[in-house]
């Protein structure tokens, strides 16, 4: 179990909320510079001298959306195996050395990236760069370590997904909304694929994607940019680039009508997810559309005064909770997603109707100038708040650079949001929030049978290589 505090922290770090990447006129962004090593590795440094600390992150352009059928979850398993040793630093040494230096370290995998990070007192940056450089090219992948670690990942899957009815519903929802796009499968992978993964698959995956010309080093903190550039050259400059093949596009074909699925699982509460197909900032045919969709998400769910909280939770009291989200920085076409849990006394049908009514309204009517002003104020403030965390700043730069956007786009966020008009918001609602492009998933709670729980972990029991 992750500590709830950690969970919240992660939720905050790993999402790019509406108000996350704005630029406040009162608070100019810290100087940020970029260089590209001869071997193609990107290095981006932001100086932030508020505290004597540094965060270092290495981002690879690989994640679950690069994976083929039968190999789902391999990016994430490889991320785990990146701590299992090189000839120079055997398994466990990486973590021990960082700990010895008072550092914190970890890694994360998403649909579009795999990233590794260390947070350290500023003078220890070379420790982290040396270790990252070593495992970029020299990973051992010992079979006996793999056998144990893949079990750990299966436990992670059981904890996060199999025993969590909402997560299970979300996984099924994604699989229904995307048929061809690799967003179809979960980041953690299908259990059957984890069960049949082997170390040769991992070795191949490592060779295919872990190379300087497929990586971005992001350093934020109390450092001098030129020093970091020099260190990057010293630790990563020797590596030869690899021949990196772009993943096949796997473009989702046009959807021909609404899709509905039901997930039955032992649960106490029903829940609902509705996702409309939409382009991301990466795939959109016009940039303003992506930002208008961001504003739309803010109109519905950007704070306690937004429409969902005000009307669905407090006014009609039809939802116990309701949210809207949009995958602005997804590498491929994404979804504009509404999710909600009904309040006592209301069923899921009423809740779904209430959400559809909300969608109808943003298609029919212009949003008010007050709503737009509120979102712009939130964006301006958030741009200041985000500078309280060097880690968050690095996350933002790394995400943008890795999904194929210019990382400077983060600094232009407020400007882009400020340019959005009520007419544009209505226009994207009309273009994208249409029933034929909708996938609906409903969690249908089954009684939690405490007298006859499944034996020994049900179908996933003990299927280990």
């Amino acid at each position, binding site marked *: *179990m*992750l*500590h709830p505090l*950690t969970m919240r922290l992660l939720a905050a770090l*790993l*999402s790019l909320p509406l*108000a996350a990447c704005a630029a406040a006129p*009162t608070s100019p962004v810290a100087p940020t510079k970029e260089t590209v090593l001869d071997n193609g590795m990107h290095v981006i440094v932001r100086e932030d001298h508020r505290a*004597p600390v540094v965060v270092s992150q290495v981002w690879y352009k690989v994640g679950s959306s690069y994976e083929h059928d039968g190999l789902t979850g391999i990016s994430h398993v490889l991320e785990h195996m990146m*701590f299992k040793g090189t000839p120079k630093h055997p398994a466990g040494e990486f973590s*021990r050395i960082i700990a*010895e230096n*008072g*550092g*914190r370290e970890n890694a*994360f995998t998403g*649909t579009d990236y795999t990233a590794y990070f260390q947070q*350290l*007192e500023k003078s220890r940056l070379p420790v982290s760069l040396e270790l990252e450089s070593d495992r970029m090219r020299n990973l051992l992948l010992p079979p006996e370590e793999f056998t*144990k670690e893949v*079990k*750990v990942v299966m*436990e*992670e899957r*059981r*904890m996060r*997904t*199999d*025993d969590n009815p*909402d*997560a299970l519903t979300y*996984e099924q929802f994604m699989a229904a909304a995307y048929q061809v796009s690799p967003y179809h499968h979960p*980041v953690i992978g299908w259990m059957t694929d984890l069960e049949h993964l082997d170390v040769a698959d991992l070795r191949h995956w490592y060779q295919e994607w872990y190379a300087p010309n497929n990586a971005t080093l992001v350093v934020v903190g109390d450092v001098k940019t030129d020093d970091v550039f020099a260190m990057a050259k010293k630790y990563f400059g020797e590596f030869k680039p690899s021949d990196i093949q772009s993943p096949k596009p796997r473009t989702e074909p046009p959807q021909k009508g609404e899709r509905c699925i039901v997930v039955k699982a*032992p*649960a*106490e*509460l029903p829940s609902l997810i509705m996702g409309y197909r939409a382009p991301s900032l990466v795939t959109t045919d016009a940039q303003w559309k992506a930002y208008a969709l961001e504003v739309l998400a803010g109109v519905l769910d*950007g*704070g*306690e*005064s937004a429409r969902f909280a005000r009307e669905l939770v407090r006014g009609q*009291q039809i939802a*116990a*909770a309701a949210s809207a*989200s949009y*995958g602005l920085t997804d590498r491929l076409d994404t979804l504009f997603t509404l999710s909600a849990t009904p*309040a006592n006394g209301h069923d899921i049908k009423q809740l779904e109707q209430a959400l559809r009514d909300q969608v109808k309204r943003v298609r029919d009517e212009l949003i008010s100038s007050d709503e737009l002003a509120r979102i712009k*104020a*939130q964006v*301006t*403030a958030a741009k*200041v*708040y985000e500078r309280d965390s060097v880690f968050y700043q690095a996350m933002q730069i790394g995400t943008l650079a890795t999904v194929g956007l210019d990382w400077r786009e983060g600094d232009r966020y407020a400007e882009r949001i400020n340019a959005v008009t009520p007419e544009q918001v209505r226009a994207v609602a009309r273009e994208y929030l249409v029933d034929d492009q909708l996938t609906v998933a409903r969690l249908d709670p089954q009684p*939690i049978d405490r*007298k006859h*729980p*499944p*034996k*020994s*972990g049900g179908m996933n029991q003990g299927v280990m290589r």
Partner: protein
Amino acid sequence: MNRPFHSFLRGLYFVAALLLISAEAAATPDILQWQTANGAHVYFVAAPQLPMVDIQVVFDAGSARDEGKDGLAVLTNGLLAEGAGKLDADAIAERFDAIGAHFSNSALRDMSVVSLRTLTDKKLLNSALDTFATVLQQPTFPADALERVRNQMLIGLQDEEQSPGAIAEKAFYRALYGTHPYASPSDGTSDSVKALTRDEVVSFYQRYFVAHNAVIAIVGAVDRKQAEHIAEQITQRLPAGNAAPALPPVQALTKAESIHIPHPSTQTHILMGQPGMRRNDPDYFPLYVGNFILGGSGFTSRITNEIREKRGLAYSAYSYFVPMREEGPFMLGLQTRNASADESLKVLHETLEKFAQGGVTEKELAAAKRNITGGFALNIDSNSDIVQYLALIGFYHLPPDYLDTFIARINAVTVEQVRDAFARRVAPDRMITITVGGNR
């Protein structure tokens, strides 16, 4: 905005914020301290670099004060922004959102917390403070809002009933604390929440939301004068009142007890533990450093090594102390597929026993100290970190030089002190063990 479950971490189980990892000889913030006219304690750090301020007001009004009306502290705290002065919930939300201010509130067993983050531009700051002051000092507890929040709490309880981890934690506290106020879940039970009344909320607020029962922490781009003004503005209308009385002491467990709760999950969640330590416990440092080695330091701890690295039994395995006003729990935990539950439980118990008997080595202790002290700068590198520290220092009456002396106190811990503290405070033969999951 990303989807939920978008990313997967290799696993983080540091509980730094609870345990207050800290301190190298690096610069510590300069903490100013005073009392408001009506007696609230104020802790302030000037942080002029960013045009923003964080304010946290903490009352000794957590669920330990529920007195059998389980859920009362959470309901009272949750209603503060649902109506205050002449403002209704919509108006309060609008006023904060319109200027990009963040308001948040929560109640745990010890604390009831109300927080604000806002820009310090004069007009925005004044507006945010005005609303914040109203919410803190003039909540109206509207009857219709109470019913709505009550219903949300009931839904929250149902949500927990479908989570084996949440079920385990509730059972753990109940078994550990028996008749002590810490036994009850902060968010109550469905029966207790249904029975709560508006009168009870009002009298709870009147009794505990008073200046002598409050600590104010402020960090941001304001000077001492402004901070003084802020502290007055947000509490001057509260009565001076009295600090909450001492909580009863926690009784030690007299015997081991195991409780299994069947649940249709693929994993069994295991929680094992005893009453642990108080926040200002004389054994705080040896217990903290000792546990860091046992199960508190993630991938370099013994429990993670035995359970995860050697055997692949669980994604997350840990031990930690939750230091509270009275003895908060010492807990060890993991979750594993049902078929591995017995094996995992055995390894967890053996790891604890070995630790309790053999203690730590000089080498382990030195490594732990380097980790804790070398990372000190990271613990105070943001305003949000510092405001949390201030609130803790004030609430638990830690010495004002707590941050300045932390490194020295970590470095002073010896192998013998760790052995002695664990021998006196942790009894592996008298643990509560909760398992929630399917048949094994």
